[in-house]
Every structure is written in structure tokens, then in C-alpha cells.
């Protein structure tokens, strides 16, 4: 089955741009990325788009389709009516480079600000022992393909450029939760309390659990329920528990 679809694609660069109209062939089983590729091959050879694996595993082809942040390779054309106009625009939260390609360096900057895994002292490689049930929580977050759709949709930064310096975004708050829940992470031995740092250094407090990130996650990771809320709880527990408070002061003094 083949039909002709009406597409509106944002074209432009840092100086601005607008939606342009295209009539393009659609075949059975195709996804939005196939249509963008057909446009490139037949009508607009220099239409800029990022993509890579085309199987929902690399998280490169993020864009907004009819206003919703999605992976173009996993958005089937069959979810639209044949006569429905399909509008494809670049991720709104990040600066446009050209057409559907945005500057996502915000995310790489944030990644660098999260202190890395700290290996446990005295446990040589090959001697790590962890139970499946204990690694599963962090494993869920490690399914993240870094498509940055959650970063794009999060209202804390979506229309608030000013929050970008102090807020790591759902992806990297989840990274902190992942390390915090890693059975062998030894950050605490170095005086780093990850949950407290999420609150103090990475803007966890901005999150008011509207779950937008969880809703659009193409990997169906329960970002809010399994990462952000537990992280908030741990941060708050520490803050209001006088024993923990005292303990942390004493330990810091020893260092």
C-alpha cells in the first residue's frame, strides 16, 4: 500500500527558518525517518538530519513530530491518518544548527559534571560480587540510549534557558540515581553523598515530578518513579535526619 503524505518540515539555521511543505510517497510499514530519507534522496538532498542505527538503539534521530518529542526511526507512519499533515521540527530545548539538527552539547556538559563511578578499594577486578536483584535497579537506568528526549521535554529547561546552568535534567539526575544505587559504588568513602549532591549541585529540587520525561521515554524507563522520586527521598531523609546530619559532619571533619 502506497499513498502520498503531506509533510511540513522545519528548514533553516541559526539565522532562523520556517516550515516547508512537501508531498512525499509513503509505503506500508515505513517510519517517519524513512520519509525524511526519501525527501533527501528525491527532493532536498541537503536536508540535515541526524540518525544512525535506525532501530531505536542509538538515540540519534530525536525530533518533534506533530509537537511531540520522538525518535523518528520508531514513529511508524501508520499512527497517522493518510490525509493527516505530519509536521517535523527540531528539538525545541536545544539551539538549532541546521534543519532538524540541534546543538546538544548541553547534555555532554552535564554528563561531565556528574562524578564518575568510584571503584571499591581493595576489591580487585574479577572479584566483584553483586546479586542480580541488586543490580537491576541501576540496570534499568543504564538502558538509557541518550536520545535526550527527556531533556527536551522537561519544562524546567524547555522554555527556561536561565535554568540550564543549575539543572542537570532528567537524564543526568537519573545517572546520579544509577550511581547512588550501584551496589559497589564507593563515592561515600570519599565524602561524596550522591543524593545530597543531586539536590545541592545538580538542581534536583527543580523537578516537581510532572512525569513528562517518563511519558516520552522511548525505552519506557520509569525515570520519575524509579530514579527521581527515590533520589529526592534519600536527599530529604539525609537533610532532616539529625543522626545522618551529625554523621556526615564528623566524617567530613576526619577527611
Amino acid at each position, binding site marked *: 500500500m502506497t499513498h502520498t503524505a503531506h509533510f511540513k518540515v522545519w528548514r533553516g539555521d541559526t539565522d532562523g527558518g520556517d516550515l516547508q511543505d512537501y508531498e512525499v510517497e509513503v*509505503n506500508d*510499514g515505513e517510519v517517519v525517518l524513512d520519509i525524511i530519507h526519501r525527501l533527501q534522496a528525491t527532493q532536498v538532498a541537503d*536536508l540535515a538530519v541526524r540518525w544512525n542505527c535506525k532501530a531505536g*538503539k542509538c538515540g540519534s534521530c530525536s525530533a518533534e513530530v506533530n509537537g511531540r518529542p520522538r525518535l523518528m526511526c*520508531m514513529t511508524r507512519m501508520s499512527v497517522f491518518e493518510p490525509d493527516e499533515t505530519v509536521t517535523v521540527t527540531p528539538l525545541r530545548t536545544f539551539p538549532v544548527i541546521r534543519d532538524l539538527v540541534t546543538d546538544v552539547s548541553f547534555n555532554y556538559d552535564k554528563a561531565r559534571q556528574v562524578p564518575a563511578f568510584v571503584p571499591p578499594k581493595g576489591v580487585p*577486578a574479577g572479584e566483584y*560480587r553483586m546479586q542480580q536483584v541488586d*543490580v537491576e535497579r541501576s540496570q534499568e537506568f543504564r538502558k538509557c540510549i541518550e536520545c535526550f528526549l527527556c531533556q527536551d521535554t522537561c519544562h524546567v529547561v524547555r522554555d527556561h534557558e536561565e535554568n540550564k546552568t543549575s539543572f542537570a535534567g532528567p537524564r543526568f539526575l537519573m545517572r546520579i540515581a544509577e550511581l547512588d544505587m550501584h551496589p559497589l559504588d564507593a563515592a561515600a568513602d570519599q565524602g561524596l553523598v550522591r543524593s545530597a549532591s543531586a539536590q545541592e549541585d545538580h538542581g534536583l529540587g527543580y523537578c516537581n515530578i510532572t512525569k513528562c520525561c517518563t511519558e516520552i521515554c522511548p525505552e*519506557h524507563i520509569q525515570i520519575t518513579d524509579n530514579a527521581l522520586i527515590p533520589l529526592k527521598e534519600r536527599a530529604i531523609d539525609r537533610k532532616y535526619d539529625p543522626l545522618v546530619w551529625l554523621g556526615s559532619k564528623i566524617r567530613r571533619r576526619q577527611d
Partner: protein
Amino acid sequence: MTQVERHAYDVVVVGAGGAGLRAAIEARERGMRTAVICKSLFGKAHTVMAEGGIAASMGNVNSHDNWQVHFRDTMRGGKFLNQWRMAELHAKEAPDRVWELETWGALFDRTADGRISQRNFGGHEYPRLAHVGDRTGLELIRTLQQKIVSLQQEDHAETGDYEARLKVFQECTVTRVLKDDERSEMGAPPDRRSGGKVAGVFGYVRESGRLFVIDAPAVVLATGGIGKSFKVTSNSWEYTGDGHALALLAGAPLINMEFIQFHPTGMVWPPSVKGILVTESVRGDGGVLRNSDGERFMFGYVPDVFKEKYAQSEEEADGWYTDPDNHRRPPELLPRDEVARAINSEVKAGRGTPHGGVYLDVSTRLPAEEIRRRLPSMHHQFKELADVDITAEAMEVGPTCHYMMGGVDVEPDTAAARGVPGLFAAGEVAGGMHGSNRLGGNSLSDLLVFGRRAGLFAAEYAAGLGEQRPAASEEQIDAAAAEALRPFGAEEPAESAESAQEGAAENPYTLHQELQQVMNDLVGIIRRGPEMEQALERLGVLRERSRRVAVEGHRQFNPGWHLAVDLRNMLLVSECVARAALERTESRGGHTRDDHPGMDRDWRKVNLVCELTDEAQGGGADGGKQALIGLRQRPMDPIRADLLALFEREELLKYLTDEELDR
């Protein structure tokens, strides 16, 4: 003189997949200022697509496993054409490379006693693949990526600059490896045809189109494979044979280019996802292959060399999953080349599915919940892309171009490319390790073992040069710039002989599609002499037309231009594949000749070596119709005696000639 951005590093790594990142980590840890260059964003490399696992004989699930067993399996899988020293190093070092990942934060699935779990896979005698569900490649990439970030954090703490010693240049394409002038090299050996040491790389920034040079005495190629030369492939757009072509153009030979692995199970429906991989874990965890008659046909396709190792009946095969000591393994888990050929035959015999594949069924073999737990990505992929629920129905699958066994001819211990001092190669772009066919799971371990070695020896080489660094001439840089920018002012049609039609500007997308069709149809999974001759002819025409590729628009993030540049590499590599495949008149591993169906022990002793011809060295690497690639046969090094002693003589006789055995 061309205006280019200029940087200087000690080691440049081209490619940011598993091998590239592992090489970069090693070079940086050895104190080298290291640059990584990749075509995609950092963390998106094709390694993320690897599903099944990392093969390493840790013996966590079956304590009988050790490096010798892994070595044997690898050699059998490659039909003994493997560079045996690489196979040995790989089998010995893989466990350390996996354990090291845990110290960098990786979280593998666990055994009941808390160690790294290992799963069964085709061609591996014991459960050997460390894994994370069916997204092991993602875990590998993320772990290496995060290790790089942690090294950058250390540098930041020390110097205030994250990129002081290790920088990732993302979304950049390298178009040339630069070398110093050979004439400046006193007494260079005559067999080193292009002389010259590596002096750096030339490339452009995809985002802006800016040209750049990185001066560096050591370059590690880690660019992956060539799958985008084929129509049906599991490979991503980045797999355009860049490293293979860069090595050739720098004067380094390639070996084993006739061996391409067609993975037996790619998706066949819908058309837009045709070729996307269905992990071998589906079979490792109990999935079976059936034809349209409902028959488990693999029992009819066990070749003689594997007869003793595989089950003869469904009952015996099914018993193996729970009691492997007393049952032989199911034939669905034969090496990939065998399974791919069997599927091809079934479809050809009219026993295929409606969309031209066979059925891969796990729904009748495992409870739904277990399938979702063990194969989450596959469940997700089929649900989202094909509307198929794999817990309730069978998948339709067929062969897809998956992996290039051939590549840069390297020194086994150091990963140094032969003939070009300062050039190194690791991972899929390097040849030899996997012989004529790679076992599943041996790729991720290969990346880690030889990525580390390439980084280590590149660092040693760079350090050993001291202040005496080779430098590329301005003429070389000017020529590289002109070559990269040519699609914007494509060659004018020749006035004389050719008609206006023939001289018209060419669309890079059209040429790419035609190339893919030629390779798929004429140099694909089953090959015939006359078809490959035809392919070579058509590749010549395509190459000539590629000179006239013209692109619209400007240099800023222009995919038409990017493809035009990559076309040169795909055409060069395709010629290597077709020439080598035409020359090898036998069938072995990832090379199946309809007109020469048998495996020939005399051919086992021979590597086919591809090199750029003298004319092509002269500059016109995308020149006229004439051959650019020269081919020669080279005898393989005899396998070391203690390694041969790991096999029964009876088995060796299937692969090695009597003279080799009696030596």
C-alpha cells in the same frame, strides 16, 4: 595553501566505537595527548547495536571453560583461516578486559553466586558471553564513554580543562591519513612502496564543513565495517569502509576481504526495516528455526566437520538447554555462516515465509514473561516496528550483511598496520582475527583486546619518536582539501567522446543505491564467477560516474556532500571484496561459491592481499574504469605447534593438508 584548522596530538583514534574508545583510554593512560574523531555524536557508535554479549572464558557458568577451549572454538568458527596469534591473544586476554569494565562501572547480569553471568552462543562450546539482557553493546559503549569522561574529570581537577589530554571531536569525518614525504626517509626499504611515516589526519567538521588537520605521529583506525555497500544490512550509515579505504590510500594492504558475514537472522518485514538484526541470543536461549512446513530444518544442514558436535534429533537438542553435559547442542547454534546458508537454501526451495524468510520461534519455547526478561530489546523492536508480539508468534527472519572479517593487515601483537609506520588498526577494520567467519560474541571481546593493544603500541610508538615527528607537506594537504570539496564543483563533462547524457551530474544517493544493488545481487551471500566479473565491470562504471557527483547547498551539515565523500570509500572497498571473492575458488566461512562449493585445504594456507595499484597511488583514487586494486596471494604463517596440539589430528585433517601436519 589551503586554510585549515590545525591541531596537534600524540595519538589520534579514528572511530569511537568499542575499539576506538578502548584504544583512546589506553593511550591517554600511557600519558599521551589523545584525540578521538567520530562521525556521529559521542556514544552513538554502531557498537550500541551489539546485542548478545562479550565472549570471554571466565568459566563462571561452566567451570570447564578456559582460553584453550575459546581458542579452539574461534579457530573452528573461522575454518582455521584465522591469524592464530590474534586468536590466541584474544582468548587469553578477553576475561581481563571484561572484568576491567566492572571496575569502570559496568553492570552485567549476574549468576546466582553474584558473578558475571554467561550465556550460550553459536559455535561456543560453553556458556561464555557476558551480557546485559540483549543490550550488551550499549552497556559496553556507555561504560567506555563514562570511563573517558572520568579521565576528563581527572584532567579537569588537575588542569582546569576537561580536554587537556583527551578530546573527542564528534561529528567529524576523516578523509585522508597524512604521511611525511618518503624522499626524506633515507634508506627506506624498497618493498615499502609508499614509504613515509604517518604524520596525521585530514578531515572536516560535519556540522560546519570546516576543514581540519590534526598533526600526530600515530593514528589508530577503529572505523568498523563496510556494510553500507550492501542493500540488506544490519549496519548503520557510518559503516562505509572508511578505515579500510584510508589504510589502502595510505599504502597499507588489506587481507581476507572476500569474507563477509551474513547474519542468519535479520528482520525481513516491513521493507523499511529489512536487515535490522535479530540477536542470536534468541536461539541461544531456546528459539528454533522452522520453514513454512513447520519443520526444524537445521538438522538437515549440519556439515561433516561439525557432525560430532551437534544433536541429531529434536529430543537430544532440547535436552541440551538443561543438561549440556549429556546432550549435544542444537544445530540452530551452528556458526553463523552455516545457518545463513541453510536459511537461504530453504527459501530458495520454496519453503520460505510470505515475506521471503523463515520462522524464528521463541514463543512456544519459553514463557512470555521469561522472553520479556531475557530479550527485552527484541520484544520492543518487533512490537514497535513490525506489530509482532514475539511472546505469542514467530518472527520472520532472513540473512543480512552483518560483519566484515577482512581488513587492515596488522601485526598480531601490536595492531600495527604492515607497511605504514605509525598506522594501527583495531576492531572490525582489522583483518585476520576471525579468519573466514566470526563467532557471535567474539566481536565485542576483539574490540576490547585489540583496542587496548592498538592504544598501547600507538602510545609506545609515539613516545619512541621523541621530538622527531613526521610532518605532512602542504601539497598533500592542498590535494586532500581539493578532493574533499570536489563534489561542490564536480568535474566538467569531457567534451570529446562522451555524450551529454553520460557526462551529466550524478546524484550521490542514486549512485549509492546502485552500488548497494550491485553488491547485494552479484557479490552477496552466494557467489558465482561470471556474476562477480560483471560486478567488477559495473563498479568501474560507478566509479567513473562518481567523479561527476555534484551536491546542492553549502557545507554546513550537508548529508548529500557527506555521502558523496563516503562513496569513494565504499567503491574502493567493494572492489576489494569483488576481486578477492572472484579469486578464491572455494567456499569457506563467509565466502560461498556456487561454482566452487567445496572447502579446499590448499586455499586455507593462503591470504588474499589487496593493495592500491601503482596508478591509483599516483593520486586518482577515484579515477577511470581501470582497476585500482591489485591482488596477490600470500602464504599464511604455519600455526604454532603447541596451539595445533590443542586439536585432535583427525579434526585437523579436515582443514590442514597432510604436509602441514607432518611438518
